[in-house]
């Protein structure tokens, strides 16, 4: 399966790194995209499509252990690495 030169998320990696790496390895590469910034709108640049959104939600729930309701799945919360980080932080408070 796809091989990617990325350091795996370790204890020392920040939440933002984890989110960025997940999106890069699982969504961006499959769209032929190899770079994006933390505040880039991932829907506009085509990194995230309708199924990608639900892969992010599964990642948040399974890997980061936060519950996301259907209403919270929207363009504001999921548009960028930064906004996803904010969503997770607000849940962990």
């Amino acid at each position, binding site marked *: *399966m*796809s*091989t*990617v*030169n990325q350091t795996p998320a370790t204890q020392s990696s920040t939440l933002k790194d984890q989110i960025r790496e997940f999106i890069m390895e699982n969504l961006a*590469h*499959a*769209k*032929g*995209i*190899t770079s994006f910034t933390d505040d880039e709108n991932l*829907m*506009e640049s*085509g990194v*995230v*499509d*309708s*199924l990608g*959104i*639900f892969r992010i939600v599964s990642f948040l729930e399974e890997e980061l252990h936060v519950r996301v309701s*259907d*209403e919270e*799945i*929207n*363009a504001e919360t999921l548009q960028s690495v930064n906004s996803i980080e904010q969503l997770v932080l607000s849940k962990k408070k």
Partner: protein
Amino acid sequence: MAYILQQLLTKGAERYPEKAAVWARGRSITYRELNERSNQLAHLLRGRGIQKGDRIGIYFPKCVESVIAMLGIVKAGAVYVPLDPQAPADRVGYIIGNCGCRGLITREDKRRGLDEATLASLEFCVLTDESPKSSNGASLVPWAMLSQFPAADAPKVVLTETDLAYILYTSGSTGRPKGVMLTHQNALTFVEWCAEIFKITSEDRLSNHAPLHFDLSVFDVYNTLEAGATVYLITEDLALFPSKLASFIETQGITVWYSVPSALTLLLLHANLSAERLARLRLILFAGEVFPMKYLQQLAATLPHVELQNLYGPTETNVCTYYKVERDRLASMDKLPIGIACENTEVFAVNDQDEIVTEPGGTGELYVRGPAVTYGYWADHEKTAKMVVPNRFQRNFEEKMYRTGDLVQLAEDGNYYFLGRRDSMIKSRGYRIELGEIESALLSHDAVKEAVAIAIPDDIVSNRIIAVIAPHDGIDLKAAELQQHCGAKIPKYMIPESIEFRISLPKTSTGKVDRVQLTQESIRAAQQTATEAVSQ
């Protein structure tokens, strides 16, 4: 009765001048405005020397100007070519060159993304977002310029229903997309049948979920105009979020919905749909891929008041068969039929003995004849001759029919059932994808020796795409690099989501890559991964 598409708008503008015709991104335009603006655009295009039959591209994200552009271009007697605003510039450039677009209606950021050779080939670009100050050079025409042209009437151009109205590009097996030519008659045959059978009225609010380069949008736009209804263009920011989309359908009071099944499945799974919320919705049409039965049954149960219709047909025929979902039969069905032929269209299956299938249970390739069938592919006589063939079942006069490449079975009740494809075309989220086009993109990378693209069946999107690659000896190639390479050649929905590397690919006894074996291996591996995921 209308024989060219723009007559649908003229009729609407006379009957409902102040009614909203098109809504998008929080903005709407009335029938009068749509009529006047498209008249002005048509005069502008004629002023630029555009003649009957010339091609003009439409290249910007959906908004009310998209519909003005479509109508303005046909009113000038020209042929519009909707271009995917999300496709790589290389592919868009190829299409512009292939059909020889003389002009483009576009947005400055989109125009700037095109390559030099493509820009040089265009005589002019009408920019929907630019003010006169910021445009430079004679070849850039600001949208504001429209107001200088006559609004009351369209230019006088002699057109018949056999003239081309638009060209829709679909995936091509040889690595480049092919342009399906559609006449006014092709479109109107379908639109008039829909108007009759679905009883669209001026009270209806239609959604437009499909992109404009996708033939589903022909119904959304032209059946709206035909009825004097309103069409709500659904943009990416809405389409991506099921919960938001459901609220949109609810608050805008959408009455008629048409999309690929996967969009409906996502709504069903993630949007908390209910009959109370979508009380005004009366009709759901779906097409483009097979609707998985379990989700269709759930949808039918969740929205008991909504009529459900399965439409079938390749772009070359628009829709040619339909099946009205019978709720009382749904529980006992394991597969949904594609149904029976639409009015003014004939379909039949031709078996391996080259006979028309008449007995229930018989299988064969589906053929289509009638006024909905395309002339063929733009500037591709070879492909056209292969797919749009003389009707050998009657020899009294010359007539063409279209071979769909779809294998079907005729059932007891007269319905046809889709069995599969004769070739390597697949569907994913309703998009038609030729695996050959993906392989051609993979093989265009210098390090790739052999490449096979494989479709893995998927519950929600019909198929996911993966690839198996053998690189040239000793080259260390990364999946991400190859995916990036593909991103410059083919649309994102065609890029393999994962790539497996092997030293060499298995071969058949004739020395060809053994596609069947690779496909079986990959599907088995995918099923195993899925089972492991469940048991974890």
